[in-house]
């Protein structure tokens, strides 16, 4: 009896390609949520009663809230094919410090001043990158250094405390509560930080997918020259992208300062790379024009869930870094393969 050589059989090959494409399409559509589902199963297996407790879900969501906010801003930059905004840490630190410095004026004015000043910093980046065509990575890295020097010079390298600037002020209590207050939902409660992050995700998704600006951004991110030749105001789009990103970083900065109860030039260190990781896990590529905010949220969730599961089973921090690194590589590998199969990459 002769054996059938499936590899040389054209019908089998076509069938297998179709199967692969289906699998790739499935992976591509669900993206990072396949990993979220896998982690849910692992979590329930390793800590059946604890993992799905309301307290644990709340804590996990809260733990990724600040990073999620930064990731929303970073998503716009990545989507526009400008790689990443490495000035995020200093915008976070600066906005928090400006808010604390202004706390004597009351909580709301201080919040607005902090967020606006951070957003303005983004406008400068947007102008230099959009109009002067500076390389985004080099510029934002250098800009981060410059801002770091300015902030240290202004505050003499010191930390600043709201209760020292405005002793016995109700605004200080409101400022502290900003990151600690929760919204009750039946037996469950969500912290304000989480609510703000979710609102940013929804708003970000609407801007990306349902607005004229979002459409223009997709063209700019996919092919800059084509966008320019088709009459899109690419400079304006890029300035707007960096302002939106800086707005997200600035809001994060105010929450960060609130949770830290102080402002310091090093608040926000490391958030740029963590946010980029979440964005890439969520399916965006550094080439731009691909992915969405739902994926970014999934990326942030994966990072939070992985840490949570490993903490629950007692994996040390160093081993956690290894697992996170390997998980990142696997997810990016799967996404790249599925993109290639679908001819998207």
């Amino acid at each position, binding site marked *: 009896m002769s054996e059938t050589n499936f590899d040389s059989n054209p019908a089998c090959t076509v069938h297998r390609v179709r199967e692969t494409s289906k699998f790739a399409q499935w992976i591509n559509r669900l993206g990072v949520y396949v990993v979220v589902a896998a982690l849910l199963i692992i979590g329930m297996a390793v800590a059946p009663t*604890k993992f799905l407790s309301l307290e*644990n879900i709340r*804590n996990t969501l809260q*733990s990724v809230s600040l990073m999620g906010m930064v990731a929303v801003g970073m998503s716009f930059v990545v989507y526009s094919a400008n790689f990443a905004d490495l000035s995020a840490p200093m915008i976070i630190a600066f906005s928090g410090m400006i808010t604390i410095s202004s706390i004597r004026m009351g909580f709301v004015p201080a919040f607005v001043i902090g967020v606006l000043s951070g957003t303005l910093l983004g406008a400068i980046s947007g102008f230099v990158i959009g109009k002067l065509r500076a390389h985004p990575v080099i510029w934002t890295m250098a800009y981060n250094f410059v801002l770091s020097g300015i902030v240290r010079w202004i505050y003499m*390298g010191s930390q600043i405390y709201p209760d020292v600037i405005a002793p016995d002020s109700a605004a200080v209590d409101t400022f502290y509560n900003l990151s600690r207050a929760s919204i009750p939902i039946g037996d469950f409660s969500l912290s304000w930080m989480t609510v703000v992050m979710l609102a940013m995700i929804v708003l970000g998704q609407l801007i990306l997918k349902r607005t004229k600006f979002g459409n223009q951004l997709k063209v700019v991110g996919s092919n800059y020259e084509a966008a320019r030749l088709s009459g899109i105001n690419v400079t304006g789009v890029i300035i707007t992208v960096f302002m939106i990103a800086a707005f997200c970083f600035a809001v994060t900065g105010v929450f960060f300062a609130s*949770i*830290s109860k102080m402002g310091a030039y*090093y608040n926000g260190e490391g958030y740029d790379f963590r946010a980029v990781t979440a964005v890439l896990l969520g399916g965006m590529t550094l080439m731009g024009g691909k992915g969405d905010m739902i994926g970014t949220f999934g990326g942030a969730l994966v990072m939070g869930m992985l840490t949570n599961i490993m903490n629950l089973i007692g994996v040390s921090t160093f081993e956690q870094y290894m697992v996170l690194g390997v998980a990142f590589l696997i997810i990016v590998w799967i996404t790249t393969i599925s993109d290639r199969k679908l001819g998207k990459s």
Partner: protein
Amino acid sequence: MKKLLALLLTLALLLPAAALAALPDSSGVLSTDGQMLMPELTVKDIPERPADPASLPETDAGRYFDMEYAGWDATEKVNIPVSDGSGPQGKNVIVIVHGAHGWTTAYQKGVQKAADFFGITVEIMDPNWDLATQNQMIDTAINLQPDAIALIPLNAESAVQQFKKINDAGIPAFGTNTLTTSDAMKYMVCWTGPDDWGQMRKLSDVLAKAMNNEGGIAYITHNAGTSPYYARTYGPITQFAQTAPGIKTLDIQTPGFDAVACKQVVADWLTRFGTELKAIFLADDSAQAIGAIDALNEAGRSDVLVVAAGNSKTGQDYVKEGKLLAITYQTAEGDGAAAIFAMAKYFDGQEVPAIGYLAQQIITLENVDSFYPVQW
């Protein structure tokens, strides 16, 4: 008459020597928090070194002997310039720190206060955490030919070359704050700074007493591999093993100095260990304490005792509120002043200890009010 002349001659010879030996009384100089800025430097008793520390178990203090008693074998000094005993007045010194931080600002304040007190002119250089810049600054400082150079080395390995270079130039070198290896210490007149291990042992004793010497404890550490990482993790672990073996380690994590990350770790501990978790030992009383205390507050676990290393405003406020059981007193101003104090003694021709530690104190609810206003 001859006897009187001899007596006068003796007095004439002795009086200037006595005047040289006496530095002005610095006990009235206070740091921002109202503590004595320059208490006498202390010296630690060094026990016999185990034959092979690395072979000892993790809970045995002897395993960390070379860290806890760093410099124990630095008895041999190389090419240390001899002081002419002319006193500190009018001397020019340079202090090279590690980088900008709230702590460093307070440290520099201490340096300046002490220098002003002794009539020393001081220049402070800040390399902003960059080793190459720090090395350049050492070259610049040597070219300026000051009367002494104090250095907070950025890196233990590079410290040997850095101190050797200053020593080779014939300038008295002083190590400050960050401990180095014995290889670097032989090029210094002396090293001054905090005894992190000693402080952690004292803090552990306070916690053990509050825990009735039993229960589960978890640790959030300093950055892995640094000297505070070992002192603030294995200081308490080895102390409990000796004095309160009923205290058991449940977990050790290193989430860094991000309040959100620390909060997640503690929240996960509460989920994982439940009421088994009786205490938390933190390597930092600022961001780590905020994260831990927020997680405990949200879970309604006021029964969990928390102690922390450090002496920030955040930590001190938490002690006052009763949310932290205790923190260590780590005077940044005193640390800076100690380097200048050691220099002043050296310029004065006095004996300076090879390793001089800052005085140790633990801040609890009972004494916290005497440490306000905080230094940074």
